[in-house]
């Protein structure tokens, strides 16, 4: 079965999951105790305004009508919104409605904050992969040695440390006491990597790059640590399994040099299954980003989500949830396709 058919099948599954996501988000509102309206309305709003909003949002309609409107609103809004992004106009549609507190369109607010989260997530992933894979390989290939114990203890501590506490301690030690890094915020006015990629003038911002890096270091470490520890453990145990397989003994029987057996054969087969696990664990990464943004006051989607929940701005919460979940689905489709491309055993059927 060709790549195209696999993609179609995977996209169909993705659409089903997105439909599931939208349904759950709608369901959240329904299961809220008491009158569903008060989830959508700030508590201190007067009775006539309340009536007005209920009428506008059609909250008095029967449930399935509301649900239909909600889903079709998003379904129709998305293509229109994407079109706007493509043509560079302000993102109006996406059918996510307007924020109750700021009155601006949810989609544009979410759209503006997304790059900051993506930037953090990408930096954390890069940090994780660059450190974790070599560490996992080294500790797997020379067992019962100092690097092996070091890597094991580091990765154990890494997955056992709550990232918010790590962030707080990094701020206290590195930022406050030693004053090496800013205690919070993101480099203001300096376009982040994602914005640069979008707007395409990466070279001109060389000076800005140093400040941008200065700001993003602590948050990236905070977010990346759990992920680095996890991938180190997976690489190590994956490699140990693979080294026990018959084809490794057959390769040595052929007289192949160790470097070839270890890195061309074993490491490659170890990394293939790790791709899927990384895909699955991306949810943890995005979850971690939400907390890291809260700790470092980083203007990303996670902060938008937390603030909108605290200020009971439900349309904004809905928008953030949907975008995060859809983002996760898209990333997983990419990861699955990558896995199937890299792994010859699994055809596209």
């Amino acid at each position, binding site marked *: 079965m060709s790549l195209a058919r696999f993609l179609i099948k995977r996209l169909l599954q993705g659409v089903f999951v997105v439909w599931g996501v939208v349904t759950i988000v709608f369901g959240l509102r329904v299961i809220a105790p008491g009158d569903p309206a008060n989830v959508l309305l700030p508590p201190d709003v007067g009775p006539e305004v309340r009536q007005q909003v209920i009428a506008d949002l059609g909250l008095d309609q029967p449930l399935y009508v509301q649900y239909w409107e909600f889903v079709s609103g998003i379904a129709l809004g998305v293509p229109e919104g994407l079109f706007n992004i493509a043509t560079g106009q302000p993102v109006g549609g996406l059918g996510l409605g307007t924020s109750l507190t700021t009155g601006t369109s949810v989609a544009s607010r979410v759209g503006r904050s997304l790059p900051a989260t993506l930037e953090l997530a990408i930096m954390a992933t890069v940090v994780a992969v660059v450190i974790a894979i070599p560490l996992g390989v080294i500790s797997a290939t020379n067992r019962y040695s100092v690097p092996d114990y070091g890597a094991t203890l580091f990765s154990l501590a890494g997955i056992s440390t709550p990232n918010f506490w790590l962030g707080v301690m990094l701020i206290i030690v590195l930022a406050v006491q030693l004053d090496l890094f800013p205690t919070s915020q993101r480099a203001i006015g300096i376009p982040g990597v994602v914005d640069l990629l979008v707007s395409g003038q990466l070279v001109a911002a060389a000076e800005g790059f140093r400040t941008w890096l200065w700001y993003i270091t602590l948050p990236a470490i905070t977010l990346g640590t759990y992920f680095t520890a996890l991938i180190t453990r997976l690489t190590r145990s994956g490699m140990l399994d693979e080294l026990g*397989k*018959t*084809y490794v*003994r*057959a*390769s*040595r*029987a*052929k*007289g*192949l*040099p*160790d*470097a*070839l057996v270890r*890195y*061309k*054969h074993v490491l*490659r*087969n170890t990394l*293939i299954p790790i791709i899927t696990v990384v895909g699955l664990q991306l949810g943890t990464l995005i979850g971690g980003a939400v907390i890291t943004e809260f700790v470092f006051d980083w203007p990303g989607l996670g902060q938008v989500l937390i603030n909108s929940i605290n200020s009971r701005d439900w349309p904004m919460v809905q928008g953030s949830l949907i975008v995060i979940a859809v983002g996760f689905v898209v990333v997983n489709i990419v990861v699955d396709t990558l896995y199937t491309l*890299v*792994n*010859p*055993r699994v055809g596209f059927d």
Partner: protein
Amino acid sequence: MSHAGHRDDLLRVEDLTTRFYTEEGQVNAVESVSFDVRDNEILGIVGESGSGKSVTALSAIDLVDSPGKITGGEVWLRDAELAGEFRGDKPEAVDGDFVDLRQLPTGVRRALRGPKFSMIFQDPMSSFNPSLTVGEQIAEAVEVQRRASANPRSTRSRTQGYGLGKLLVDSVVPGRKYTSDESHERAIELLDQVGIPDPVERADEYPHQFSGGMLQRAMVAQALAGEPDVLFADEPTTALDVTIQAQILDLLRDIQQEQGMSVVLITHDLGVIARMCDRVGVMYAGEVVERGSLEAVFDDPTHPYTQGLLGSIPDVDDPAPRLEPIEGNVPNLLDSEMPDRCYFADRCPKAMEACLEHPEERAVEGDRRHTARCVLADDEYDPERALDESQFEGGDGE
């Protein structure tokens, strides 16, 4: 120790001992095993599961991984060149043209894998790397030999002349890779030589696209890359159906005769031994209990275990009404539980008092070429001196 052996011996293994240090305790997988391999012959090693036949082969070519360890014995290989090289600084390791590989540095032993020894395994599907094409993996085997002959000294170094640095450069720079085009062509020739139809296309396919029989042929092709002198075949046809097994056995026979190489065929199937082997060694509980020519072992089996084995096989041409099985179970090889007597005594119908000491390998009626590790080799069974149940300490006896 003089090596009065047969003049065209190629490989002489003496008192090879390999132990596994597991959590349950020390397992004596191979216990002072001796056998020799002559030029241009197929030597059979037969035994049931747990007899140590596979570990014997792996020990001979130094492929035992931890927790296993080769703890004793000598592996004499006839190699005039190597003998000349080490006659100077390791005189005790050289005897005429023979060199004891166990006394040589690891790098030298490892460099022999390919040009001198190679090995094929039971399950072809798990003996190939699933994510590389078959052609690439065979080309690798050819490339190792090409680079070894181009620069013999480097293959004995720790990184065998191809460390992580070179690998990184090869994988980063496009167009550079470990296997050269010549080795790919040679790989295709090898695939053709082992009878795989349209080898050019098949070389670019992955192991899971091959049938069991075809992949086993590919494994033989890979083993021929270095034109080895001795090919160890560990249960090569056990995982195959009988009609495919017949094809592979014919292939092994043809290749052995064409290349004039020796084959050590390890299997539990006495039929395969009878069809293929000139000489046979029977293994039980980590020891060679009987060895000799095919006629000697099949027509005049001396060790009761060999007799028991031959008696318990149903014959497809004239089925006996009832089989005579060997009672009891194979012993586990935990050193703590292995009694210092003949390991087969508790299952042996002809056990006698003499069997309470561990028997030595004895020539059967004076014929040096047919030996058995049993008192019956040069003694008759005498019911008066029979051993009864009570004299066995330990063991469940059921």
